[in-house]
């Protein structure tokens, strides 16, 4: 059964009062919602809080799902809302990244394109190095401003289409693509810096 049909069937069953169908929906989406949350909140307890809140809202609001968009789009919107609520509720305690600095780095028009002098694409295949690189990249992703990080996660990790990402975030397709491209360039650059600084 295609993904969307299965979702629709499960939603119908939940509406009919079948609680096991809701657990099936959770099984299908909990890893995705968790990745979204942990990517934005950075610690497990906060992420769990957001995931709990998200699924509770999905359950409460399931009658308002009209099938005008894919169920996954609807669910991601609710999940994002939960994540942002949690983020805002604790944002007073945390200094956010300096957006100016990152905007500067992320603006392709201002980037002096530094082409690799010597290639490192093969070096990235090294198995030992890969573990190190994964850590470098996790830190680089965490350094992205929220609005870039969320697009990057939905697009690259969850593999949604640009249009789905734009729908979920209420952004234009053009803005979505621009941010995605900047995020990708930034992450490539982070990797490049690390590898070239690492060359003997």
């Amino acid at each position, binding site marked *: 059964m295609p993904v969307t049909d299965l979702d629709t069937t499960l939603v119908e069953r939940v509406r009919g009062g079948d609680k096991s169908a809701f657990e099936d929906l959770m099984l299908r989406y909990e890893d995705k919602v968790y990745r979204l949350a942990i990517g934005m909140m950075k610690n497990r307890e906060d992420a769990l809080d957001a995931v709990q809140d998200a699924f*509770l809202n999905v359950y409460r609001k399931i009658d308002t799902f009209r099938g005008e968009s894919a169920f996954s789009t609807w669910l991601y919107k609710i999940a994002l809302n939960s994540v942002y609520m949690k983020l805002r509720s604790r944002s007073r305690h945390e200094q956010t990244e300096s957006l100016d600095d990152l905007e500067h780095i992320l603006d392709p028009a201002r980037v002096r394109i530094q082409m690799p002098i010597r290639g490192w694409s093969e070096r990235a295949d090294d198995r030992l190095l890969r573990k190190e690189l*994964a850590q470098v990249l996790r830190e680089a992703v965490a350094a992205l401003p929220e609005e870039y990080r969320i697009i990057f996660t939905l697009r690259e990790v969850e593999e949604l289409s640009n249009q789905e990402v734009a729908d979920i975030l209420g952004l234009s397709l053009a803005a979505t693509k621009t941010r995605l*491209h900047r995020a990708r360039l930034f992450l490539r650059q982070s990797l490049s810096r690390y590898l070239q600084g690492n060359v003997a």
Partner: protein
Amino acid sequence: MSHPHRPGEPTCRQVFELLSEFVDGELAQPEHESLSRHLEACPPCEEFLKTFQVARALCRESLLQKMPDELKDRLRCFLRDQIKKI
């Protein structure tokens, strides 16, 4: 940025700016083809594309984690408890 630029063909800067649309297959066919030609003829751009793709693949690999089982259990407990009250 040393590749000689022919009229009507994209510059290295343009390749750089269109790379996401290129890898996502979102360029119109003529544009896609002229980028491909540039990439074949311009080793720095070709290497840039390779590293761009390597970075994407590594990111995905390092971020594709599952929710830990312990948290899944707590999620289920929480929801079963909450749903009873609804």
